[in-house]
Every structure is written in C-alpha cells, then in structure tokens.
C-alpha cells in the first residue's frame, strides 16, 4: 500500500527527480516532444488530477507555469487542474472510481493499478502509445506496471525501489559510522541495539503493522530476501517459506530479545515519518521519498538522513505512481493527455525534471527519487543533472544509488490491499506479542490468502 499522502510527497519530490534532455537543455521540441503529428486539431479539454496543493506554493507555481507553457505550445488543448489534498484518499478514491467521478487523467499508486485494469476502470491507451517517444527508453520493469499482456493502460510518473532510511545524526551519537550503513540484517540488529541504548524514547528500528502498511513492508522485506508473495500463476500464497519466516524472526529478535524497536506498535504510514522527524528513530525500510516527507512535513533536516539499499537484497519492491485515463475519455482527450504527461513528467530537463528551476525556487534537489529510465541515455542524463544542481548532500544517498544499481525491481502481488491487510495480522502479532508463534502466523495467513485468491479468481 502506498499510503495516501505519498502523493503529496511525490508531487514535491518531482522537483528533485532528474533527467537530461537529449542534450539540448530546455527548448521544447528539440527532439523531445512530438508536437507535430499528435497535436490536437480541434479544441479539447482534459481534467488532470494531483495538482500540487496550495500548501506547497512553489510546486504549485511550477505546475501552473508548466500548464501555461504547454497550452501555449498546444493552443487547442485546455488543461483543468484538480488539486486534491492528499491526491488519493482511500475512501474517496474507491467511491470516485465507482461513481465515474475520476478526472480524465487520474492519478494512481502502483498498488491499485492491477485492480483498476481488471475492473475496466481505466481506458486502454495502446493505440495512442506510439506518440510517446520516451517509452522506448523506459525501464521495462517500470512500464510493465501499467501493462496487461500487450495492452498499455497508463504511464508511470515516479518509480523507486525500497531501501533503508537511517538517521545519520543518531548513528554518530551511537558511535556508528554514518558513511558505512548496515549491509546485512545482522548489522541492522547491532546498529538498532546501539541506538536504542541512547536512552528511553530512542527507537533503533521502526516497522509498520497497521492500516495495510504492515503487509506492505512485509512484502518489501520478503522480496529483499528473495522470497515471493504469491506463486507465479498468482493463485496461491508463497510467503510461508524460509524467507517469510526469516522476516518475522528478524523482527521478533529485534522487538523482544534486543528490545530495540520501541514499545509503541501498530504504526502506520505517518507514524514512522513523524518519529524520523522528531529525531528519535534510527532506521526504517523506505525509499528516498521518505526523507522528502520527513523534511517537508515533519521538521526533519535533509542533512541528518541517509538512505542505503535494503540489506542483503537482490530484489526490491517497486513503488511509485502514475496516471491512467478515465474509460469515458475520448481518443482526442487521451492523445492530449499523453502529450501533457510527456511534457510534464517524462521529458528530461523540463516539468518534473527541471532541476535548474527547482534549485532556483529553493526546493531540495539531489534525492535519487525516481528512476524511470535506468541506465539508458535519458537515465544517465538524469543523474548528471541531478548532481549538477544538487542542493542536498548527494553522498548521503550514494549507498542507495550504488546498492540498487544491480537490484531487480519487483511488482506488488495481485490483490495487494487484501493480502496486505491479512499480513498486518502477522506483523502486529510479532510486534505486540512476545509469545507469537511465527509458523502458526504464517500458515494462518497463507490459508487466508489462498482462500481469498481462490474466491476472487
């Protein structure tokens, strides 16, 4: 589950992401946006979700400037921006989907994409995808999020793999080297113990166990260890395995034997952020966007945090967001929408990848927040530009960039929310009951997931 306010964070994070435009800086049309063939011939209006909220005035101004520039380029297209705060509120998201209230171009988390495609709540944009010139350079594992077979249903906006976020200041206080973050789970345990020993209220390692986030992080850890949530055909649970056991054993060890995870459990999305922001939490599973959130919303400071790759990881749960189209959208609207997406989110050097502007606006630049292109030409440009205009200590995120270079992204399981909800139970049991029986918990969860998958197929 990508909890609700991620949208905001990512919106803010856009400014940080990086891209290089085929080497020609900012001039639109310089080999990037195919303004010619796909340009709308007749006036068309599209509503687009997830405009940055008023409370982020700089990002909002950038968005509005991009809209104005885009409309100048395409006089026939009118963009109606819809800001929501946060971009996805679970209770309204489902209701809006059901009620057909979604924008023509609506914002989604990866988590919900499968279900939306399966229930026909998004338009098939395969026929128009050829207008996206950036598609060919995109990482196949990223674009596959929005694919069902050969059909394309949406376009990614941001993407990242999970890592380990840690508080460098606490590392220093606890006598650990912040430039040599833990590489194995054993090292994580040792570091957590030292941080928790700083005094009451200090938590070495924090973990979720409520609001579906427990299952989400269980999945992250399991993927990191090379395990799987479901069998390849998606019909059976696959997490009742040595890897799944190791995930829970590790937590049990830290929670009860080492006592390095604090007493407060049943945490959800914002709780760990808040703890990070108040400077009492040592480590948590997360991506660079976490640092973004901690800085923007919870009074943390960029320089105090670092991110490294998930310990011992060969695979990492991929997270991110993107846009899909309302099934009622007309072909003209879809074409116009793709033009806008490409202009704002996919073209190196402009829109979300306009680092120079972000730096001038005083927004933080330098977080490895999004990776759409991998090692292809645009991807390399991204890194160059990001480093060039960086305003945050890039070194602090180097372990993450280096460590994730050889890590394979892996998508969320089908029926993700339901599976996460079931695994919340196992996670909350391990973290709140000293006598929790891990084998029992995993086999119970397995039964539940099997029943649920059998029912829904």
């Amino acid at each position, binding site marked *: 589950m990508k909890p609700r306010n991620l949208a905001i964070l990512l919106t803010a994070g856009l400014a940080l992401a990086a891209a290089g435009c085929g080497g020609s800086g900012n001039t639109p049309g310089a080999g990037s946006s195919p303004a010619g063939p796909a340009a709308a011939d007749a006036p068309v209006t599209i509503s687009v979700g997830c405009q940055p909220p008023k409370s982020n005035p700089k990002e909002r101004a950038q968005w509005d400037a991009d809209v104005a520039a885009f409309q100048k380029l395409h006089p026939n297209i009118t963009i109606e921006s819809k800001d929501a705060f946060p971009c996805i509120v679970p209770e309204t998201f489902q209701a809006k*989907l*059901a009620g*057909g209230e979604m924008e023509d171009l609506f914002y989604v988390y990866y988590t919900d994409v499968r279900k939306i495609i399966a229930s026909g*709540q998004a338009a098939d944009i395969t026929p128009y995808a050829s207008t996206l010139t950036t598609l060919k350079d995109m990482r196949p594992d990223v674009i596959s999020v929005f694919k069902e077979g050969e059909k394309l249903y949406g376009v990614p906006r941001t993407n990242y793999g999970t890592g380990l976020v840690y508080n460098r200041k606490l590392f220093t206080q606890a006598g650990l080297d912040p430039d040599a973050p833990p590489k194995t789970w054993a090292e994580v345990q040792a570091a957590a113990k030292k941080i928790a020993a700083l005094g009451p209220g200090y938590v070495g390692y924090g973990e979720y166990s409520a609001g579906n986030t427990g299952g989400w992080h269980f999945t992250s850890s399991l993927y990191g260890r090379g395990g799987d949530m479901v069998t390849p055909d998606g019909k059976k649970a696959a997490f009742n395995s040595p890897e799944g056991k190791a995930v829970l054993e590790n937590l049990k060890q830290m929670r009860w034997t080492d006592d390095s995870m*604090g007493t407060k459990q049943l945490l959800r999305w914002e709780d760990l952020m808040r703890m990070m922001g108040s400077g009492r939490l040592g480590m948590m599973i997360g991506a660079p966007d976490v640092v973004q959130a901690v800085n923007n919303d919870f009074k943390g400071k960029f320089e105090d945090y670092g991110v490294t790759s998930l310990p011992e990881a060969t695979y990492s749960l991929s997270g991110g967001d993107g846009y899909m189209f309302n099934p009622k959208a007309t072909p003209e609207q879809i074409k116009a929408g793709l033009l806008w997406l490409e202009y704002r989110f996919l073209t190196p050097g402009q829109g979300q990848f306009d680092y120079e502007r972000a730096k001038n606006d005083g927004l933080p630049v330098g977080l490895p927040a999004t990776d759409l292109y991998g090692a292809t030409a645009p991807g390399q440009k991204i890194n160059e530009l990001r480093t060039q205009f960086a305003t945050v200590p890039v070194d602090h995120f180097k372990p993450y960039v280096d460590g994730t270079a050889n890590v394979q992204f892996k998508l969320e399981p089908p029926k993700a929310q339901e599976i996460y909800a079931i695994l919340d139970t196992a996670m909350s049991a391990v973290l*709140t009951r000293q006598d929790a029986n891990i084998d029992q918990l995993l086999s119970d969860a397995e039964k539940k997931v099997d029943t649920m998958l059998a029912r829904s197929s």
Partner: protein
Amino acid sequence: MTTMTTRRDPGGFRRAFRRNLTAYGFLCAALICFAFFSWYPMVREFLLSFQKTNFVGPAEWVGLDNFRTVIEDSAFPAAWLNTAAFTGLALLVGYAVPFVIALVLNELRHATAYLRFVVYLPVMLPPAVAVLLFKWFYDPGPGLFNQILGLAHLPALSWLDSTSTALISLVLVSTWMNLGTGTLIYLAALQSIPSDLYEAAELDGAGLLRRVWHVTIPQTKLILLVMLLLQIVATMQVFIEPYLLTGGGPENATVTVAYLMYQYAFSFGNFGGGGALGLMLMLVLMVFSAVYLRVSRDDAN
C-alpha cells in the same frame, strides 16, 4: 393504519380528501428528501449486496456470493465478536457510570453548572479530535497514561498494542466522548422524582441504597430502558475508534463490523461484500430498534 376518523365530521369525505391533500402538501419536501437520501439508497444497498459491480459495466446478479465471501473471511467472526464485546463493555462502563455520576451530581448543591459543563464538553468535540487526542495519550512511551501510571509506580500498559487491552482502550475513548449525554439525561430524570416519595421511604426507615433501589430506579425505569437500547444501537455501529486508533489491529482484535464493511467497500473496492455486511448489521440493529420503538410507543400511550 388508515385514519378516516374525523371525529366531528361524519360524512365529510370531501373535507377529509382536502385535509389529506393539504397534509401531503406539507409533507412533500420531507418525502422527497427521504426518498432521495434515505429510502432509495437503502433499497439500492439491499440490491448491491446481491450484485457484483464496479459501476463501470452492468452489474451482475450473484445471489448469495457476497455473503459467502464475507462469512468465509477470517475477520468476519472476529468482527462480530468484537462488536458484541465492545457493546457489552461499553454498556458496563458507559451505561452504569453516567447513572452513578448523575446520582451523585443530583445531591450536590455547589458547582453544579461547572460540573455539568465539563461532563458534556467532550460530547461537543468533533469525534476525530477526541480520538486523535487519545491516540496520543495511549502512546506507550511518552504518552500521558503510562506516564501517570509511572508516577503512581504502577506497571506501564501497552493499551492499544496488545490484544488483551486494545478493545477496552477503545471503549474508554468512546465512553469519555459520550458519557456526558447519558449523565445529563439521567440527571434531568432524577430531578423530576417527587420528594415525597423519598420522604415516605425515609419514614419507612429505608437506607440510601434501598432508597435508590425502591424509589430512584422504578421512577426512572423507562428512561433507563430507552437509553439502554439507544446505547446498544449506537455502539453496535462503532467505527471511528478502530478506524483512527488501531486500523482493526493488533491481530484483528479491534475489527468491528462497521469497520470491516468500510474496508471491503473502500479499501478493497468490493462494494457487494460491503453491502452484504451492511445488510447483516442492519438486520441486527433493526431488532433492537424495533424494541426501542415499541417501548417509546407504550410510553406515548
């Protein structure tokens, strides 16, 4: 049901017709509001629970499938048990306590305005505020409650973080929020008890407790009964506490029927399942509500 009893006006058929026309003229705004925002959604909810639909394509009829789905869900029995337990605990705590408080307040002659004001204060707060506030008090580390226990040299509790205390912690929040209502209503009822009854009991040599038992309770029996039913109906629908405090955890210890329903509809997008749960809850509540209506009708006559 039909009332053609215009008592002083035999044979006034036209008059009766006119009266009905006027009456429905007066009623029409309310009827429209109810039809659109209560009755039609109720019917639609009923239909939803037998359908599988995502509102994009046409709905398909699936008979009892949705019911099967939710009944097979492992959280289903937990949800009903928790709801029953919550209701029971809330009755123990939230039903007896206001009555006792009202009995005490009724005897006091000073600071009454202040006491009434503060006891009702939490009722006026938006529920979300009260719940978020308690979430912060329950924090096992720096949270207020454990700090107070620490001052008293009592062991810290894990409050929401343990299957054994999570539910009662929710009941405490709920009671704190709603206790004022019951207290003030009982207080008003107590004030209407004629003094001579107490005086008579006193002459018979009845002690305090016997006076409560033989005078106070019989005199307030009806309101006690009505409040009991209302409390049951209200607490059966408990949602915001688990939603904001625990997300149903730990280990489904605080999943309630209303919360599960919400989860089905708004987190899994399974509206049929949510509808089926809603229908079941509705049927159970109807039984209690029917009793309530019965009681208040008897009272009316």
